């Protein structure tokens, strides 16, 4: 090792006059005197060479104490869940994959996907309207958000379902004239499904509009200016420069919304729409096994949310490219790194090559 050789080449350094820890505090006062003349005792000579010493990371004993305490708590909860017979795990297992429950689950997923996608598309349009220079577009967008955010979703849902009472027929034509291209009975158009999608979508659009607008606003104006100065066309400016950067601000809240929507779909039980929650209600009203069946629904919601969280992690990671100096490791990479550093003896892993 070259460091060891150079250490011996300067025997004066190893003398007892030399302080073992050269720090600014210890040498600072000595410099003013004979310091500049050379590597004399107490002077500011070349620092002692520690390059042969192994490096040891700092220890975090309290982190381990905290980890142990939390682990104990988790174990206790798990134990009580497993051993208390009133949870009736057998009943849970029996219903978890029952055909009716799975059908309900599929309905829930369908509602979430459709109203989530439509809601965010409409929200995107509303956000652009709100950011446009036209006062009319701005106020229409503002009013939309205002109305749909200030009325309970439950009420909206019931209103849509009962639209037939307010308007018997729905027709498409030229406003303020008698020209009608097509006309239909409201009750045939607004099924349970349509009312559910309509209610969830419009409500979702109102919220996601604000999320997307916030994301767009968070992008530095200089970015748009630089792009404009380079002659990059407006559409390309939005899609290539602004949106990818806005996504970083949009994604965490957007996933919050989507996860909220998964469970929010349970509100359509008021329309007797047989999604997951309504289905288990029907079942436990019949079998009187209330808690186990609620547990079935809960577990499914947990599963969906977990899957979404994994997606969220990777999508966010994708959009953090360039925004963070080094990309965070994926869990897989983290695990590999953990085994690479901890599986071998710590002294070997830490010492310099």
């Amino acid at each position: 090792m070259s460091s060891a050789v150079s250490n011996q080449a300067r025997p004066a350094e190893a003398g007892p006059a030399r302080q073992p820890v050269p720090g600014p505090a210890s040498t600072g006062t000595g410099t003013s005197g004979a310091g500049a003349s050379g590597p004399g005792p107490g002077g500011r000579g070349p620092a002692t060479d520690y390059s042969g010493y192994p490096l040891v990371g700092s220890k975090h004993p309290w982190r381990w104490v905290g980890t142990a305490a939390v682990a104990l708590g988790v174990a206790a909860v798990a134990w009580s869940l497993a051993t208390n017979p009133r949870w009736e795990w057998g009943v849970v297992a029996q219903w978890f994959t029952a055909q009716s429950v799975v059908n309900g689950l599929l309905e829930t997923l369908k509602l979430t996907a459709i109203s989530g996608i439509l809601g965010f598309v409409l929200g995107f349009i509303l956000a652009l309207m709100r950011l446009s220079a036209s006062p009319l577009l701005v106020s229409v967008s503002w009013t939309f958000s205002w109305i749909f955010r200030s009325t309970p979703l439950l009420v909206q849902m019931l209103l849509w379902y009962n639209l037939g009472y307010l308007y018997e027929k729905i027709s498409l034509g030229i406003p303020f004239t008698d020209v009608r291209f097509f006309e239909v009975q409201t009750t045939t158009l607004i099924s349970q499904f349509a009312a559910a999608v309509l209610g969830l979508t419009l409500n979702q659009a109102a919220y996601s509009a604000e999320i997307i607008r916030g994301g767009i606003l968070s992008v530095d104006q200089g970015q748009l200016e630089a792009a404009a100065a380079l002659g990059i066309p407006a559409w390309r400016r939005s899609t290539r420069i602004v949106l990818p950067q806005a996504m970083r601000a949009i994604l965490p809240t957007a996933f919050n919304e989507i996860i909220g929507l998964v469970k929010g779909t349970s509100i359509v039980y008021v329309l007797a729409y047989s999604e997951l929650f309504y289905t288990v209600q029907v079942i436990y009203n019949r079998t009187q096994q209330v808690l186990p069946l609620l547990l079935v629904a809960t577990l499914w919601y947990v599963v969906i949310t977990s899957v979404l969280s994994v997606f969220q992690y990777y999508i966010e990671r994708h959009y953090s490219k360039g925004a963070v100096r080094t990309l965070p490791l994926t869990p897989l990479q983290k695990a590999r790194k953990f085994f690479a550093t901890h599986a071998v003896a710590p002294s070997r892993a830490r010492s310099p090559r």
Partner: protein
Amino acid sequence: MSTAAAQTATGTGQTATVTGQTAAESAAAAGVRTEAAAPTRGLVEITKVRKSFGATEVLKGITLTVEPGGVAVIVGPSGSGKSTLLRTINHLEKVDGGHIAIDGTLVGYEVRGRRLHELREKDILKQRTEIGMVFQNFNLFPHLTALENVAEAPVVAQGRSKEEARKRGLELLDRVGLKDRAGAYPRQLSGGQQQRVAIARALALNPKILLFDEPTSALDPELVNEVLDVIRELAKSGTTLIIVTHEMGFARDVADTVVFMDEGQIVEQGSPEQIFANPQEPRTRSFFSKVLEPAFNI
């Protein structure tokens, strides 16, 4: 150098612009581009440009001509409107009065009847590809690598092929000494390196005119010289340069015209020798007496 000699007092500039204005109008009206021989492209004529933000008038009738291939350095106290003037040159900032012409073509407007109509966005964008701009705070796209930053505009604004833009991008990064960092994201680069990428990005469109807003304000002294060399080379290559800077040593080095601005007006302009050694206006003298000393001591 000839530019500097031609215009010493502001009065001369004024008369020069009157002819410039008519030339610009007739050229624009006829739809003809005064595209002369290669070294003569990049004539910038700024005529009586006014700009206000609310009640404050930031530019109070600026008239300035920069000859093709000339290097004009704009100096002046903070808030005097230097950045604003630069931004009007590529129409990032709309003027309230006056006009700017490049090689006889109005920037951002066209003459119809006896009015100046603002051009459509598409045409403005096309004009901007001939005017490169390097910003005070770089404004690199943080989610794109150095090379992607440089290669983006040639593809979407000039319709070059991706491969061609990439090759040219690497060439330009090489020229600013950053070829080996082509794949790095801006946040992984030092401030000085970021500014050099920004210069490469502005060069990628092969502009007639380059606008620099304090290009060296974020560079450490060692890098200033590298950038200076790049800029000198650019000056020789016949690109017109308009540079705003607070670094007087740099200004003296690279300029052939130095323009001193204060409170939205051009107080004085001339060759670096004239302006630095023998300023005529008391306002110029008092400004330089404050800034020059530390700059020249380096």
